[in-house]
């Protein structure tokens, strides 16, 4: 069974009554799957470590020690030191928090600018919908990295700006999904029933339509988190994202590029972490999608 | 005897040697994981020039049997439990892929139920038939195309030259089915298997296609296996009929005696439920219940649960064998005691 990318089969379509219960069981079901469990555990551990990072780092991540420059991994420095003698492991831990926070920020911006227009567009239709979807389509045809770069050019380099830019670049995607789900649900009779019993429209939208859009949205969020992490790393690698003295995983790689031959661990360690984290997000998205569509989605 | 629709042309005599032999054929399928028996103890033979009907409900296994006859059941989900199928000199059940490919199309042709999706949408219909011709005879492209158009004319396609350049989506269902027939007979096979060829067509086209098949059989001398759930079609067309139920053959008989007096309760029930058979202005009687699910092991007769003449202790204990009383055969322990109503013709 194939479905269009933005609309899910209506197997989970229920009026709101069982909402909380349904969401808890989805998480449960995802957790029960092997890859799902591994991804969730990895991400939870990562988040916890990133939050407490400042308190558990063995060294001050910004502490320069020119006598211990470019040292390979050792018992004192688990991942060695960089070109300024800073402990890579400590930097990695702290940079994790920066990267993750930035990723969440971008997705949040995307949701902010995507969900509301999507709901309105799907619900009201008409010329409003046509204009919004045309604009979204044009934006989607831009390479998202280039769009982000353009917005960064307007706003100036800096992590906050970069993530805002990335979020804007994503908004059309979320918009499309939410719009699709809302349109799909709009025609269901229980919505009519709710409206006819006098429930004000916004409440109907908020209370009935959105919950049914959640599954598709959550899946997309998961994938977007993975993608955003990579884009953030890329921008920071180029020097357009996080600015020194702050560091993210991407900027760590960017700063160590010159030393790759003599100190490959400087590039390997942050890269591997980015890879695994992105992999975890993507796997989570895959498992979520399998669970929600109830079959091996191709 | 069966009608021959084409005046002036005599139906070719039915040959002595069996063209197709199915011996004790049992097949397991694994549609989702577990292998379950789908066909059991199938014995069937077709002689050249014969028209045999195979009738059964959906789920009886008739389409799987049809595919098995040319070895098209996917190997990955099927397992031969016993028996073999021989077409002429080639053993289908043990044949190499090459052997099967050379037999298909040239010795045996097959047409399917759904003409709308049976042709490749990316190629013109003439090219598709020409390709099959070239595959089996190795003639030049121009010659193959010429023959393809000849075949289109043979299947009564008007404006054949122009139609040959059409894409499938430009043709109606009836026309597409004619193309499929042309494809199937293009290399003059000795046997044509038609799996519900008219079910997806409207009534007028149905009649036309059946007439066409009858004419082709008269002119080309092919044997035909016609698979259908529609007894009326079988009645008009076939010399002999075999009734399938739940993966087994439950009755085999020449056509006229079958209609006058069937020997198996299921056959009788089928005949009774023909609309022509029923008193006018009354509710149609249908056969209650449904066949056992695929692969379910049923002790004794598989029809027992729905049979009006069932005797507990006799019918539902041990598996029932096919009793052979040539030219008829039936799988019922009570057949000799019962006098089953047939159909008014």
């Amino acid at each position, binding site marked *: 069974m194939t479905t269009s990318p933005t609309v899910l089969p209506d197997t989970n379509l229920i009026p709101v009554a069982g909402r909380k219960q349904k969401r808890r069981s989805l998480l449960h079901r995802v957790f029960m799957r092997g890859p799902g469990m591994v991804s969730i555990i990895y991400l939870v551990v990562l988040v916890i470590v990133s939050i407490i990072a400042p308190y558990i780092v063995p060294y001050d991540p910004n502490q320069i020690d020119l006598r211990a420059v470019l040292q390979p991994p050792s018992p004192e420095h688990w991942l060695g030191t960089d070109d300024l003698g800073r402990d890579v492991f400590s930097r990695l831990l702290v940079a994790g928090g920066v990267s993750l926070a930035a990723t969440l920020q971008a997705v949040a911006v995307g949701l902010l600018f995507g969900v509301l227009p999507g709901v309105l567009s799907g619900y009201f239709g008409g010329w409003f919908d046509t204009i919004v979807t045309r604009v979204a389509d044009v934006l989607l045809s*831009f390479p998202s*990295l280039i769009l982000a770069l353009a917005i960064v*050019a307007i706003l100036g380099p800096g992590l906050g700006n970069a993530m805002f830019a990335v979020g804007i670049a994503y908004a059309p995607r979320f918009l499309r999904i939410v719009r699709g789900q809302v349109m799909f649900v709009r025609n269901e009779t229980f919505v009519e029933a709710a409206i006819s019993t006098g429930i004000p429209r916004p409440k109907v939208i908020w209370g009935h339509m959105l919950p049914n859009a959640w599954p598709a949205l959550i899946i997309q969020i998961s994938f977007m988190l993975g993608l955003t992490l990579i884009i953030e790393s890329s921008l920071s690698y180029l020097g357009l994202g996080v600015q020194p003295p702050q560091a993210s995983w991407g900027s760590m790689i960017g700063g160590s590029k010159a030393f790759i031959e003599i100190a490959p661990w400087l590039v390997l360690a942050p890269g591997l972490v980015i890879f695994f984290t992105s*992999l975890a997000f993507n796997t989570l998205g895959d498992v979520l999608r399998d669970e929600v569509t109830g079959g091996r989605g191709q | 005897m069966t009608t021959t629709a084409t005046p002036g042309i005599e139906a070719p005599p039915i040959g002595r040697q069996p063209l197709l032999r199915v011996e004790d054929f049992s097949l397991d399928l694994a549609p989702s994981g577990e292998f379950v028996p789908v066909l059991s103890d199938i014995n069937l033979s077709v002689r050249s020039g014969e028209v045999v009907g195979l009738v059964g409900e959906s789920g009886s296994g008739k389409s799987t049997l049809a595919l098995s006859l040319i070895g*098209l059941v996917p190997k990955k989900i099927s397992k031969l439990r016993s028996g073999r199928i021989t077409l002429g000199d080639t053993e289908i059940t043990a044949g190499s892929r090459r052997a099967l490919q050379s037999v298909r199309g040239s010795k045996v042709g097959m047409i399917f139920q759904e003409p709308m999706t049976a*042709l490749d949408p990316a190629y013109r219909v003439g090219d598709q038939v020409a390709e*099959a011709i070239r595959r089996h005879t190795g003639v030049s492209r121009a010659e193959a195309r010429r023959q393809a158009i000849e075949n289109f004319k043979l299947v009564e396609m008007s404006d054949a030259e122009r139609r040959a350049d059409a894409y499938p989506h430009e043709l109606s269902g009836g026309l597409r089915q004619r193309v499929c027939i042309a494809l*199937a007979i293009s290399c003059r096979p000795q046997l044509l298997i038609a799996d519900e060829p008219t079910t997806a067509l409207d009534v007028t086209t149905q009649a036309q296609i059946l007439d066409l098949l009858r004419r082709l059989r008269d002119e080309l001398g092919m044997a035909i296996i016609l698979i259908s759930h529609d007894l009326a079609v079988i009645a008009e067309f076939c010399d002999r009929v075999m009734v399938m139920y739940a993966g087994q053959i439950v009755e085999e008989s020449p056509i006229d005696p079958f209609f006058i007096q069937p020997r198996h309760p299921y056959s009788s029930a089928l005949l009774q439920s023909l609309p022509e058979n029923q008193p006018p202005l009354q509710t149609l009687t249908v056969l209650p219940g449904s066949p056992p699910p695929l692969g379910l092991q049923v002790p004794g007769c598989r029809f027992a649960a729905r049979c009006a003449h069932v005797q507990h202790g006799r019918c539902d204990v041990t598996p029932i064998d096919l009793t052979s009383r040539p030219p008829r055969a039936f799988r019922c322990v009570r057949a000799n005691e019962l006098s089953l109503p047939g159909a008014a013709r």
Partner: protein
Amino acid sequence: MLRFVGRRLLFLVPQLLLAALVVFILTSLLPGDAAIARAGGESASPELIAQYRAELGLDQPLYVRFFDFVGNAATGDLGVSFSTSESVSEILWRTAPVTLSLVLLGFIIAILIALPLGIVAALHPNGWADRVSLALATTGVAIPNFWFGLILVLIFSLSLGWLPTTGYVAFTADPWQWFLHLLLPAITLGHALAAELTRQLRAALGDHLRRDYVRTMRAAGLSEKSVVGKHALRSALGPSVTTLGLQVPIAIGACVVIEAVFNLPGLGSQMVQAVFSRDVQVLQGVILFTVVLVVVASFLADMAYALINPKVRAE
């Protein structure tokens, strides 16, 4: 077919105009403009700036400026870079071939990987090819491009010394060197593209192999080579071609980073520089060119799809 092409071409013009509009709006929001740059910077006297503004037509209402912009762009005049005073068109002329070479080579490598892998995976579900393509798909999405490129450089250039590390050699100067220098970047790009292409091809081919007409062809005795290679594959290529078209914007985006890693003087590097120096003219020109490229690529993909699938031409 000709009518189809003609109709699509008509669509092209409004599409391009719309894209140009978006680019124009985007860059109008950028702080700093040609007048300020000409006048020597933000600290120049306001009168001087105003004078240049009038001269360059920047004080005109927006829609007039837009028409000027489109008109100029159509004739190849995209302004002058603030930082280097080189004309933007010259910059594009110089850098576009690099990026285009990279994208072309990247796609070729992606197809070389995806085609055999996708076909084998579709023919043998759950076989080794299927697993490999799944692994490829997962890593292709999760691996950061720039990191993958760096690793390739580490292994193949620095450790093994087989390939040069950075830089670009023009095809016209030395084709072999051109190829060697582009090989690692193209593999980096191709790997990311191959993931989605393989997935798409496998799905499409798998779907077509299950269709009725394949059964008809097999029943007619056609060889597997013909059934799969000539018939099923041709129809399956349709959606894959569309995917190829959709991958172009992704590829161009990836080029930005890949060019940075491998020091290739292409559109991507140019764009990054322009962002750093807030060079509006260059940014505008590069983005416009990129968008035009994407629209044209999408158009070509549609054409290819219509060639493969006759049903589409009838619409």
